[in-house]
């Protein structure tokens, strides 16, 4: 009964000296076939040749249960007639829902709205982020403290930011409206029109994520060697020339990464929109993510929402591959 344990102890001792020899010992002595005790079993499980697999197994199992299985399951459902709220069993539908989604004018309208928000928000984030990075590249009093403050928005939860901006825009009590009324005599009803509501979302999103762009660009800016600027100064290069030929090439790669990353993230924008406008007025600011949520969890059109989600996933995968391509290219540059 004690024999395998003794062998394991010696095997462990061997392991520290000669791995190959110890493996042989383990193979010969610790096998579940013996089945003598739980201890034997655990030792068999975590024998050196299995240890790696065993250590990653929990993560793989979690990944499979939480990500891969639901993904495959919902992919399967997109080919069936199925509603989560109904007790009727799924019926095969083929590509019916893919066809339905791709020919649905509402989907294209929501994609158009999403594109408008993405274009405006990402542009604003790039401009503000770049400007802030240029500012923080220089040394000035309280730079560190100010930098920490500027980074705060992206550390807040989406819900908190959404609620904050909703109150900010509220026309009766909101500070923005109060300030506007002070100068113009009338309250500001920003969320009453399509473009007002779109800008309201864009401002909230840009406020939250411009610091992220700034961080990336700042990393590029500080990596520019000083001697290049010194050489440019000797050549009496103008500010614009210095920026174009020295600074920008160093930050271009990171800027592109920021652009892609923010485009992917903004494409999926949900929380801020849902809280600030709930897609309104009417459906003017209903992004594709809000629409998917509505179809899936309010209308319980499970198959249709699955099909739509896979089409969106495809778009995100394309963008992600672009992102990875540029990441790899930058790594090669470095």
């Amino acid at each position: 009964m004690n024999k395998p344990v003794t062998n394991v102890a010696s095997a462990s001792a061997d392991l520290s000296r000669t791995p190959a020899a110890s493996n042989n010992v383990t193979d010969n002595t610790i096998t579940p076939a013996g089945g003598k005790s739980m201890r034997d079993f655990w030792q068999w499980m975590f024998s050196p040749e299995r240890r790696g697999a065993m250590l990653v197994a929990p993560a793989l199992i979690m990944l499979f249960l939480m990500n891969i299985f639901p993904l495959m399951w919902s992919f399967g459902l997109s080919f069936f007639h199925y509603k989560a709220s109904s007790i009727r069993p799924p019926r095969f539908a083929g590509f019916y829902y893919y066809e339905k989604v791709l020919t649905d004018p509402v989907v294209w309208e929501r994609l158009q709205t999403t594109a408008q928000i993405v274009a405006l928000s990402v542009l604003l984030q790039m401009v503000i982020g770049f400007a802030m990075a240029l500012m923080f590249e220089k040394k000035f009093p309280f730079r560190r403290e100010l930098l920490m403050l500027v980074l705060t928005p992206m550390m807040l939860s989406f819900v908190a930011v959404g609620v904050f901006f909703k109150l900010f825009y509220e026309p009766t009590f909101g500070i923005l409206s109060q300030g506007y009324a002070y100068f113009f005599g009338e309250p500001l009803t920003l969320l009453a029109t399509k473009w007002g509501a779109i800008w309201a979302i864009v401002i909230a999103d840009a406020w939250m994520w411009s610091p992220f762009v700034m961080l990336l660009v700042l990393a590029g800016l500080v990596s520019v060697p000083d001697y290049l600027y010194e050489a440019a100064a000797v050549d009496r290069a103008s500010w614009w020339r210095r920026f174009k030929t020295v600074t920008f090439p160093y930050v271009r790669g990171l800027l592109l990464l920021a652009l892609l990353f923010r485009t992917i993230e903004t494409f999926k924008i949900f929380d801020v929109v849902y809280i600030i406008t709930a897609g309104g007025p009417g459906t003017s600011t209903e992004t594709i993510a809000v629409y998917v949520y509505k179809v899936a969890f309010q209308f319980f059109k499970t198959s249709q929402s699955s099909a739509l989600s896979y089409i969106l996933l495809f778009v995100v995968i394309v963008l992600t591959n672009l992102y990875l391509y540029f990441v790899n290219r930058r790594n090669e540059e470095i």
Partner: protein
Amino acid sequence: MKHKLNILGALTAGIFATGLAVTATEVSAKDIVINMAGPDWGPTRFLQEKFNKTYKAKSGNNVKLVFDFIPWPNFYDRVAASLTSGEKKYQMVVSDSQWIGTFIEGGHFLKLNKYIDADPTLQAIMKDTHPAFVEAYATYPHKSKNYYGFPQFPDTKMTWFRKDLFCHAGEKAAFKAKFGGTLPCTYAEWKDTDWKTWASIGEFFRRNKGDKLGDGVAADDFYGIAYQAGKGLDFSSMQINAFIWQHGGSIWDEANEPKAQAVGVVNNAASVKGFQHYLDLLKWSPPVAKTGQMDIFVIQELIMQGKVAAIINWAGLAPPALDPKNSKHAKQIDFALTPGLRGKDGKISRWDNIGGQPFVLTTWNSDEVTMEALEIVKWWMSPEVQLDFAKNGGESGLMSVMARSDYNSIRPWNRAHVELLDWQKDVWHVPEFFEMLTQQQEEFDKAITGQKTAKQALDAIAKFQQDLLTEAGRIQ
């Protein structure tokens, strides 16, 4: 001595027998936990508190009621996600009346007829429950004899007004001078208030910052009237339906499927007129109305913070308005009937959309749990508990309780609530309701924010409902 011994023996035997009985009860008593999903607000909090303090199961079991208090804005999503996921977490659910079709057809809510038929107490409760609540909260298909729920919190909308303004002699005189009518102050005056007077109130109380208002001056821009105009949940629909019904318009009649049509009914001339009437009055509301975000919580806040003179809102939200911790005008807010549409005969039509929630049982419970849940229903619907609920801010669903001579004076909104019950109707209960409601809310919102006319919005709603309900086999 023998006699004493006999007594001692009898006592010993008695104690032994009692001990055995107690032990037997303890052995047979089971721990039963009933998880109930409910919105996080006063009526459900009171139920939990009252239960914890007073409930004793007649069966001798240790019955525990555990509420999952869910914030209102996420209530439907959370309950729907739980029920449809198959987790079988809840034994009881405080459901909104419109949901019941979805979850009955989904196999989640339990039909109660056989339990009611077998229990005289439940039969008495059903008989004593106001018909408006039975129809809206319990029946599916709507107005059928299939019963699924009991009133947890029956609710109606009413007028909340600032009596310091409406009963102010100077304001009353100024109103009479400008509009020729009476600025309503007493219950009787409010009972005679129609939408025309409501519009006049809106115009009359529109004051700019610094203007005279009652005994003082307006600290900020001040507005006359407000009612629901919010895109979320069912906010706009709850108020717009009142206008549509009062003008003689209709919504799709689920009780008459598959003959009932949507096109030509939902968008008929009377419905359009009713909706337009609703839109016309919004101009006297605070600017948030223009954003389509003036929901029940916003109008509650508007009156509590002194931004508006009168609102129309649910009784269920009234208690905080009378609490000085929440409300700047806790002592000045009073309640009255809602305005209505005056007909040619001078009578006022007050059709409105019923509110409130039933509680229902889920289908996966064991018989033992079901019986214990029904015991909780019986306890909650008992006159004593219902009366205590009313005293603590709730409303009773029982006609016998509402008929008590002291009922109307228990809380300041009770009189209006009781009087308005006969004017209540409900929206649809079919499983397609959420899709219908969402699309309707979006179209209403487009009209509220000026993107569409009343007719265009109702045409779009009618077409959508016709297509959806035809596809679902509910319209032939």
